[in-house]
């Protein structure tokens, strides 16, 4: 597969069992700004990282906190299938949300990476 543009990391997500402590650490060390968002289905600290990269701190029951990078792709189904052929395990098959589709892969060399296919801007999110 050839590409004219290398897919970019567009979003970084920290999954942690202690959202408050994580936010304190990163704002203390790197002055990262967070905004607490409490919605009906998710408690989230939005991260403003700048340079077209955003992120969030997600509170969950993971025993081991970890960062998950999201890479923007044009065709998430095809990229997920390619990942599978290259030996990745598909932890979450592409799933549609209001703003786009996401998939989560466990790579053969270890570590996880997420794919993100945003819906066109003209699609009304709300």
């Amino acid at each position, binding site marked *: 597969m050839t590409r004219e543009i290398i897919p970019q990391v567009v*979003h970084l*997500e920290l999954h942690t069992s202690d959202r408050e402590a994580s936010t304190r650490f990163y704002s203390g060390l790197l002055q990262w700004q967070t*905004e607490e*968002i*409490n*919605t*009906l*289905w*998710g408690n*989230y600290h*939005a991260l403003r990282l700048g340079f077209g990269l*955003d992120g*969030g701190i*997600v509170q969950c029951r993971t025993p081991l906190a970890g960062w998950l990078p*999201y890479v923007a792709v044009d065709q998430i189904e095809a990229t997920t299938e390619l990942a599978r052929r290259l030996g990745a395990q598909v932890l979450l098959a592409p*799933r*549609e*949300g*209001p*703003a*786009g*589709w*996401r998939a989560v892969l466990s790579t053969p060399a270890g570590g996880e990476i*997420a794919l*993100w296919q945003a819906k066109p801007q003209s699609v009304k*999110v*709300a």
Partner: protein
Amino acid sequence: MFGPTYDQACPTNSSIADAINGLLPHLQARDITLMLVSGAPVEKLTAYRKRMGWDLNWASSYRTDFDLELGFSSTTEQTRAWVQSPQSATLPPVAHRNAAASGTDLVGYLTEGYGFNAFALEDGTVYRTYSTAGRGVEFLMTYYGVLDRAPQGRDEGEGFQVWIQRRDEYATGQ
């Protein structure tokens, strides 16, 4: 349950109010009361309460920061930011269904979160003595306790709660 932009209360939260409405006299016998608080204007709440036949008092937090202070809700701008993030792909089907059933859009629906609090008044000071949200409110959904003891259990899978309708909207007409 019934956010500022809703036309009607959410079906799931309405089923919870059905489930707890009958508790009121028993709790009052122990000097405890139980009430609802939602963000819609009080006129909408009062009309809906009459339709559902509830005895519970229902206060409106319309144009106050009560829900925000409790940490259950977010502003429209904050909620939109979350909806535009990859995390919103975790939304279950019932969120979309309930937004439509409440007569609002997804962002409007999600701005009003839910939770359960206990407050105590002592010497003129109000203390928040207990708080839970998310799965923590399931103890109020008493029908699940019964379903869990039925032969098939709650048997919902990915489509959890989408079977829940308002009590007067089931096709069989309860």
